[in-house]
């Protein structure tokens, strides 16, 4: 072990000792670096997961973020992606076991930040769907990269909306699965509730299934509202292009 390795290891070592080879009284001085690293990474997570922060409170969030940064430090200088595996970490984080919806809230926030930075691709609306081949078994729809669907076993929309101040906080008596749609229609990422049926429909389309197969399967799902799902897909311009199985596109 030589070179910068002792310095690097001491930045996150639990004994909080300065590495050897530094001149003078270094405990306090080295702790500036240690603190910069810890605070910088935790702040990056706070910026990316504001609802999670509001939901858990600062003390809880920072303790969890600290554990996360030590267990899974970022490999890349692109901090806009740091925390992509936070939901996975939370799912195995024992103190969060009583808050099983936290991981899904984190997934929504990841989708929101990805939407914020997503490519500026064009979108297609009703005219493009009208012009598509009539044989919808051959038609695949490519979603805009800003679009994401998050389905949860928990009422994540209600929790997110209350946490974010979009609706008044109240006890949740009817604990039901919920789904949300994340998108960036202009420059601001948005999150809005969709039915679980619409979520399943959009997920299947996003997985590359032909429109006909998705619609047929959806029709077998109880309480599924195909016109409403299509209205979301087409009316909200969630798609970036239509591809037929022959390979040509519009």
């Amino acid at each position, binding site marked *: 072990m030589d*070179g*910068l*390795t002792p*310095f*690097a290891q001491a*930045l996150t070592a639990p004994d909080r000792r*300065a590495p050897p*080879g*530094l*001149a*003078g*009284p*270094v*405990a*306090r*001085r*080295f702790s*500036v*670096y240690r603190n*910069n*690293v810890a605070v*910088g*990474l935790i702040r*990056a997570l706070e910026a990316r997961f504001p609802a999670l922060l509001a939901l858990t409170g600062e003390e809880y969030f920072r303790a969890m973020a600290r554990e996360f940064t030590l267990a899974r*430090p*970022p*490999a*890349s*200088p*692109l*901090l*806009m992606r740091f925390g992509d595996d936070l939901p996975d970490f939370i799912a195995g984080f024992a103190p969060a076991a009583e808050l099983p919806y936290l991981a899904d809230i984190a997934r929504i926030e990841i989708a929101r930040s990805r*939407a*914020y*930075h*997503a*490519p*500026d*691709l064009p979108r297609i609306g009703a005219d493009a769907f009208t012009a598509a081949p009539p044989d919808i078994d051959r038609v695949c729809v490519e979603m805009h*990269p*800003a679009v994401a669907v998050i389905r949860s076993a928990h009422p994540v929309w209600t929790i997110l909306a209350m946490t974010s101040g979009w609706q008044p906080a109240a006890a949740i008596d009817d604990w039901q699965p919920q789904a949300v749609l994340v998108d*960036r229609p202009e*420059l*601001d990422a948005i999150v809005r509730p969709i039915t679980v049926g619409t979520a399943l429909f959009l997920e299947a389309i996003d997985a590359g299934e032909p429109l006909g197969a998705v619609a047929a399967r959806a029709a077998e799902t109880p309480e599924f509202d195909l016109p409403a799902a299509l209205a979301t897909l087409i009316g909200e311009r969630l798609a970036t292009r239509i591809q037929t199985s022959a390979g040509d596109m519009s």
Partner: protein
Amino acid sequence: MTTKLPIGAGVGFKPEHFDAILADPSAPIAFLEIHAENYMGAGGRPHAQLAALRERSALSIHGVGLSIGGEAALDRAHLARLKALIERYRPESFSEHLAWSSHGGAFFNDLLPLPYTPATLSRVADHVAEVQDVLGRRMLLENPSTYVRFEESTIGELDFLAALVARTGCGLLLDINNVFVSAVNHGTDARAYLADFPFEAVGEIHLGGHDEDADETGAPLLIDAHGSPVADPVWTLFDEVIARTGPLPSLIEWDNDVPVWPVLRAEAARACALLQRHSRSAAA
């Protein structure tokens, strides 16, 4: 020519100032600087803002994540992202730090110090040369602020920087706050450091705020926090430097606890006034 940045005052651009900057065309701002890593997403608001600003302002792209002072080979993927960003916006200047931020596969998100030895000099020179080769342009390397020194260092920081310039042809970004912070922290003389600085290589000056603390012996410990106005001793050093060099592109860095636009604008105006005073005295 060392720099293509316009001679005048610049500010580090913060997204919350976007509307205020557009509404303030008479602000004494000659150029804007961005942190490269914040614009490495594909699209959306960051690029919408930067494209709009680029149309009306000179631009400096300042990297904070390349780990040029690190032991590992440069991150080729990151270098490719930098190249794409530079090709997209064609900034007047690109700069990075004499520091490391990644080691052993982990990114620490801080500008960390390195020992100054013949071996580290060779390594950093290779890294700078590689960056310049890939980007196809000269870069500026910034002098660091440091809190510790390595016992194994055998080369002074000024000699280290001058050797990098000589070996790679790179330019330097002189951060006067960093000079002051390091001098106070190590009990050395900022004026002596600046007296010997290789000014002919300087393409940009940075000015920023620092926090004051003390170490366990009670000795002063300055933290390069970029969260406050430029300190008076740093303004004085800046004044002395440009009295000697003449006006240079000079940037106010304020990255944390970002103030409202008029406060940042006033800092830039102060730098601008000093630059103009020395411009006139040089002409006289």
